[in-house]
């Protein structure tokens, strides 16, 4: 059955899969960081990704600010929105059953998406590619911008991992995740740490949105369906490890790409199929040593 499939098509789809995987990796990393620290499953993640893209579009169209400054400004704006949310909404709900914070983030997503749709309509808005052109790899034409997305996302993921695993701040974070009371008694401001963590995770989603803007159309619904796939990715990798989330993200992006070559009908469900198998074989997640609930 492999005879009919050319190497070009195969490598091409793997590369496209790698780009999707970059988004999966970054988004699931944000979700895992937020969950690890606060035990909140952030249902606003998709909407915050969309807000990042919209911020970039607004900066471009109303202030004439281009892609590169937006890459810093838009995630920062989305992170500020996240910090506001954490302070006003999630903090008061922190002591309650986790389902309330989950549903609160969902409600916010519903409101944000609805408001954006009323203001800008449901149709996608175009965003100019900041690095036009591309390179001929011999087997396919690789646009520079996509190459940039893959490289940048790898750096962001590795950087975040280093930050959390190899710095003092990261050590505080991990300690506060294990036992917030004890960390608090050492004089570390745990609530502030939580606010910053949520802001950081949300900022990552915003950053993804800016990266996605030139590839996909900027539309109010760009986040919600992507978010569900990212949830499946996070379930497969397990909620306990950042590296796990990132690796699973890239891997599943490529698996999805390969499925498009061999059995296109299944491309939209292959990640969910993987989730089913992973839950059956390793219920705690393939990269988690222990249950993180």
């Amino acid at each position, binding site marked *: 059955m492999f005879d009919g499939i050319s190497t070009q098509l195969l490598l091409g789809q793997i590369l496209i899969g790698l780009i999707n995987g970059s988004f999966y990796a970054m988004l699931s990393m944000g979700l895992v960081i937020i969950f690890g620290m606060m*035990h909140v*499953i952030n249902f606003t993640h998709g909407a915050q990704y969309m807000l990042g893209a919209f911020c970039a579009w607004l900066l471009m169209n109303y202030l004439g600010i281009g892609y590169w400054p937006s890459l810093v400004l838009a995630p920062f704006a989305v992170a500020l929105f996240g910090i506001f949310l954490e302070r006003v*909404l999630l903090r*008061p*709900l922190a002591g*309650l*059953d*986790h*389902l*309330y914070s*989950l*549903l*609160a983030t*969902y*409600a*916010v*997503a*519903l*409101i944000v*998406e*609805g*408001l954006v*749709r*009323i203001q800008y309509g449901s149709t996608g808005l175009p965003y100019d590619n900041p690095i036009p052109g591309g390179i001929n790899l011999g087997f396919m034409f690789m646009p520079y911008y996509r190459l940039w997305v893959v490289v940048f996302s790898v750096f962001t993921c590795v950087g975040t991992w280093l930050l959390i695993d190899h710095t003092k701040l990261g050590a505080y974070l991990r300690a506060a995740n294990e036992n917030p009371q004890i960390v608090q008694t050492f004089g570390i401001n745990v609530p502030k740490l939580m606010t910053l963590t949520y802001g950081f995770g949300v900022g990552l989603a915003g950053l993804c949105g800016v990266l996605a803007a030139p590839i996909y159309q900027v539309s109010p619904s760009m986040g919600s*369906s992507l978010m*569900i*796939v990212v*949830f*499946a990715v*996070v*379930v497969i990798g397990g*909620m306990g490890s950042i590296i796990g989330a990132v690796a699973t993200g890239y891997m599943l992006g490529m698996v999805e790409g390969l499925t498009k070559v061999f059995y296109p*009908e299944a491309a*939209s*469900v292959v990640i*969910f*199929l993987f*989730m*089913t198998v992973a*839950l*059956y074989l390793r*219920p*705690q*997640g393939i990269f988690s040593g222990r*249950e993180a*609930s």
Partner: protein
Amino acid sequence: MRLPLLAAVVAVALLLVAPFYFYSVTLMTILCFVVFACSFNLLLGYSGLLCFGQAMFFGGAAYVTGHLLKTTPISLELAILCGGIFSGLLGLLIGTLAIRRQGIQFAMITLAFSQFVYFIFLQSPFTGGEDGMQAIPRNALFGLFDVSDNTVFYYVVLAVTLLCVFVYYRIVHSPYGEVLKAVRDNQPRVESLGFDPERVKLLAFVLSASMAGIAGGMKATVYQFATLTDASWPISAEVILMTLLGGLGTLTGPIFGAGIIILLNDYLAGFGEWALISQGVILLVVIVFFRRGFVGELGALAAYLRARKARAAAAEPENPARAH
């Protein structure tokens, strides 16, 4: 104890005359969602499992019921029952996998599964894909009675709804229901008493899925079509809103919640996006200020008033004593 019974009798009497005053299709929609919301409350309110994919059972059963009615001469009630059985089996399959992961992640997993099921329905030829399943016939009830008239059919839907609500009431008040609540409140304790909490939860999930299936099957016969919307995740979110608004873990809460949200949707249908935004706002307000929901808050108010009256009654006997 006699007051709730009286209220139930009055409610049934009102429901019996309702189609003479209100549009019967709206009433039937409310009844379908009452069953759906009860199914959800059974799961979240009494076992603490937040399923964010309840729509897969609702929409899935709608397709199965519709397909059976379209392709076979099966009688109406059997078709709805088959929808419920299909959803129960789907629930067994998904529940077995999803319950393996502890805690709040259950919400995420069930949401992902429901999207999986949604894509399968989207690509299956028998569902009609994006167009939906059209012209589902209303076969004769028990193979004998013609129910094509909406007012007549209303009473069938009402009967099924009352039966479902009664079953739901019996489950919640059975010894099993007590174990279920105990698992929600203190799982290790229940485990130490010799129960298997995983099995208790799985059974709740299957029961809830079957009941959601009955609701979906009914909806397919009311509207005589089934669409992908019924299986999509915004419906899952809507049933969460209904249950929370009515009162989590209260017996009558989902009934009020379903009624309020369906009427609100009807009212806001012309305002497009604002319907969804208002749902978001209501959900936020309920979560932040009224976590007990409509019925729960009323119950708390009644309890407060009773306590005040009791205090007043306890204080009163002193006065006559002094008078003597």
